[in-house]
């Protein structure tokens, strides 16, 4: 399967080999001890990539055992049990590849894939081998196009393995083979049922069982391959089709689990070192295949996450898109569903002329979020702002499809983009046409003293605060923060929730009500003919008001929780349960700078300085006991408000798009408040008895304290 081009072969044959050992020896003797021949271009990267030939720790190509393509038993001579073992081992190999290992050491260790002719004669195994190969090509193409996977997520390098045939040829051939195998297996099973009463009943039953097992695997492969072809498209029709296929594959998976071969690791036809000579000159990685149980669990999770991708069709507004992406990203999905989702939300994969999904973050969606007429924007500046906002939101969508660690880092890096977007928003807000349009449309925007911010700037500031909050909260999830930092982190989170609360309220107050008379856009004939927000800002309509109202409530209650958490962290520092951060080389000011320095590039939200933090959490005049008391009251108040909001949600109309997400989020907040209330009480009571006792159970208390839920 490894192919060398004609030029490569010619180049090798026409090489003249010279012995340079003597030359090197002379050069080495001319050097004094400590002297070094060093080219400036030989940097750390080259040094780390270089290998010492013959060192087994470094030389991946070093021959340490049998290698090269081995002889394999023809599939036609395998018993049904042995063939099933090969099929299940192949699933394990593929699942191991999905988890970040490379193809030559996983799927391509299967000799039936490397030598397709050896699989001939066993219709099911041959079809499964072809389909596995086609699925690998489909997945690789999907992940490459998705552009959200890094080296740590997915190994895309094929090391010269044959992957370039193109999905179309591969999957046509694979799907044909699968259909053929499916029909043959169905017929055999049908015939076998008729022979149920024959003499060799036991042997027949086992054979029937194996044929049933193969049938499930063939159907699974077929559904998975078909689903992967369509899931990356940006139309509802494609997404619905893909969803149906993944649901079918999930059903077959249960049958596969029930009929799994007991020892797939003993399957014939696998050679771990077969591709060793093809590996890059990097230290070799040892790869352990997933167990049978882990393999089926992997596919179950993969399919569940691919089904989640299909839920994108329920999204119809910017608020819903945000909530959907927060929920999806919180599931820590693997590279395949994340790539599929990114392709589905960037809209580049739809066929020309197909109706684009309402979930795409395009002009119509963002205009609706700001109650602007997308068909005739009020001014050139506002049109430019909307274009830039589309780009920023598309970038944010891509970030949300990265793995959680990369996502956190990307959020930090994109502050510059948000700073530029704020400039565009300010230009739009200040343009006379936009001001006129606002007046005519019923906006009641009140400029604050010394602040020229308008609704566009207000919206950008709110969205940027939400992104910053997500960056900070991901740090808790990734275990990046030390407990001594919690106080400043909760302090900053409180501020950002405050920005969201205030700005959402300002937009809510100023926005024309959904029943207001349709505004007209100046200088636009089209706008004079048809109402701009007449359909209640379709697709958002009145839901914008509802969404903003919910954001105000949500941010308000998050602030209460953050404030209480900050007090509790301060009390732990004041009470000595947390030692002050050691500082032989720097101080708290540098640590503050390290965590929040990147926001200095922003105009809004206003970057906060260390001095502001130091002043606002100055506890020099307070006792640990009084701060704990204050934290206790804070959690109690937050719990009261969360309970009230939960009751209101239960009593109110259900959220059609996502009935459970907000309630689940509130439930999580309630749990955080309740657990912390108990933790504060324990700490308070223990401190009365003995300071040492107060330190007991600190780990549990800190775990409770850092418990944070992702924004919604």
């Amino acid at each position, binding site marked *: 399967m490894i192919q060398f081009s004609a030029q490569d072969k010619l180049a090798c044959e026409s090489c003249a080999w010279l012995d340079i050992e003597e030359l090197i020896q002379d050069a080495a003797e001319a050097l004094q*001890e*400590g*002297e*070094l021949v*060093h080219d400036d271009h*030989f*940097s*750390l990267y*080259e*040094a*780390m990539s*270089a*290998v*010492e030939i013959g*060192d087994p*720790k*470094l030389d991946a190509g070093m021959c340490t055992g049998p290698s090269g393509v081995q002889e394999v038993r023809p599939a036609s001579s395998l018993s049904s049990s042995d063939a099933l073992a090969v099929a299940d081992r192949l699933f394990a190999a593929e699942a191991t590849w999905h988890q*970040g290992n490379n193809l030559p050491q996983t799927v391509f260790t299967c000799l039936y894939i490397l030598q397709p002719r050896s699989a001939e004669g066993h219709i099911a195994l041959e079809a499964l081998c072809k389909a596995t190969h086609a699925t690998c090509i489909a997945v690789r193409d999907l992940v490459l196009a998705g552009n959200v996977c890094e*080296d*740590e*997520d997915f190994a895309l390098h094929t090391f010269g393995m044959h992957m370039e045939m193109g999905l179309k040829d591969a999957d046509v051939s694979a799907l044909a083979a699968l259909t053929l195998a499916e029909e043959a297996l169905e017929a055999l099973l049908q015939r076998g049922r008729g022979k149920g009463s024959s003499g060799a009943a036991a042997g027949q039953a086992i054979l029937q069982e194996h044929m049933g097992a193969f049938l499930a695997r063939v159907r699974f492969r077929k559904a998975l391959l078909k689903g992967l072809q369509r899931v990356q498209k940006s139309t509802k029709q494609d997404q619905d089709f893909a969803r149906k296929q993944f649901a079918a594959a999930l059903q077959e998976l249960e049958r596969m689990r029930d009929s799994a071969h007991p020892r797939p690791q003993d399957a014939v036809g696998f050679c771990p070192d077969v591709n060793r000579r093809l590996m890059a000159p990097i*230290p070799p*990685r040892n790869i352990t295949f997933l167990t049978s149980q882990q393999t089926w669990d992997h596919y179950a999770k993969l399919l569940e996450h691919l089904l989640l991708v299909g839920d994108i069709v329920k999204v119809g507004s910017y608020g819903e898109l945000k909530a959907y992406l927060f929920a999806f990203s919180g599931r820590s999905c693997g590279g395949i569903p994340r790539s599929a989702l990114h392709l589905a939300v960037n809209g580049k994969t739809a066929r020309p002329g197909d109706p684009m999904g309402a979930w795409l973050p395009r002009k119509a969606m963002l205009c609706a979020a700001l109650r602007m007429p997308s068909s005739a924007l009020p001014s050139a500046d506002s049109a430019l702002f909307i274009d830039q906002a589309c780009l920023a939101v598309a970038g944010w969508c891509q970030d949300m499809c990265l*793995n959680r*660690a*990369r996502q*956190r*880092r990307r959020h930090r890096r994109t502050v510059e983009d948000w700073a530029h977007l704020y400039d565009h928003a300010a230009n739009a807000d200040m343009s006379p046409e936009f001001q006129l349009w606002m007046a005519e449309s019923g906006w009641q925007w009140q400029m604050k003293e010394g602040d020229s911010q308008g609704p566009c700037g207000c919206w950008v500031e709110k969205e940027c605060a939400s992104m910053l909050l997500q960056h900070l909260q991901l740090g808790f999830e*990734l*275990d*990046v*923060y*030390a407990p001594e*930092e919690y106080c400043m982190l909760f302090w900053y989170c409180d501020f950002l929730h405050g920005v969201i609360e205030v700005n959402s309220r300002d937009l809510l107050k100023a926005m024309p009500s959904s029943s207001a008379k349709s505004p007209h856009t100046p200088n636009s004939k089209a706008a004079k003919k048809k109402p701009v927000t007449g359909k209640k800002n379709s697709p958002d309509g009145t839901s914008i008001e509802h969404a903003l109202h919910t954001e105000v409530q949500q941010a308000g209650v998050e602030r209460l929780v953050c404030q209480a958490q900050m007090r509790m962290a301060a009390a732990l520092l004041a009470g000595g349960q947390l030692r002050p*951060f*050691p*500082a*032989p*080389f*720097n*101080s708290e*000011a*540098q*640590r503050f*700078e*390290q*965590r929040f*320095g990147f926001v200095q590039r922003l105009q809004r939200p206003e970057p906060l300085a260390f001095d502001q933090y130091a002043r606002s959490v100055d506890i020099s005049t307070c006792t640990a006991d009084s701060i704990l008391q204050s934290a206790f009251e804070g959690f109690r108040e937050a719990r009261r408000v969360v309970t009230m909001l939960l009751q209101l949600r239960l009593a109110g109309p259900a959220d059609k798009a996502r009935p459970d997400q907000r309630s689940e989020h509130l439930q999580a907040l309630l749990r955080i408040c309740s657990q912390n209330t108990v933790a504060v009480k324990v700490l308070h009571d223990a401190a009365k008895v003995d300071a040492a006792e107060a330190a007991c159970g600190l780990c549990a208390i800190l775990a409770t304290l850092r418990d944070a839920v992702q924004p919604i």
Partner: protein
Amino acid sequence: MDKAAESDAMEVGDFERDGTTKNVTIEYRQYGGEQDMHHVMQLVDNELSEPYSIFTYRYFLHNWPKLCWLTFDGAHCFGVVVCKADDHRGAQRGYIAMLVVEDDYRGLGVGTTLVKRAIEEMIAADADEVVLEAEVTNSGALALYRNLGFLRDKRLIRYYMNGADAFRLKLLLPLPPRRQLEHNAVAQMAALNTA
């Protein structure tokens, strides 16, 4: 490339090793040249899981000999730190590449002292920050660097060859007075331009 390397000695009290108590003299010595190379390679190859080629050792030791410190018990070398310092996106960044203390000598604060020596050299060379990577499960190393003021800056998924995650640890250093003045002047100019 032999240079006048710094060296000093420190008496350490009773030290239990192989079930017997003995008095050990710990000597810290800056990398002195080619004769120290095998100490560094032997220690790192024995104690760290990541394989390094001779080129990697030479890259660090040839370019930044002052940022490599070794520690000896008599003639026995049992600890080493290997670092570099260069420009990173406009900041002078120190990087701790390898830190090894043999198991028998752990718990004496030798690792902390080695790192401190290296950081002091970096500060003398106007470093703005110091970074390194440590495995997320290496609680000993994480505690050591935390006690020196390092924060976990990033989590790096599947960073090591064994598939383990790493934390990028970072120590932001205060600006030296001269650079602080420059920094303030730039900030004032920017404020004036904005106004």
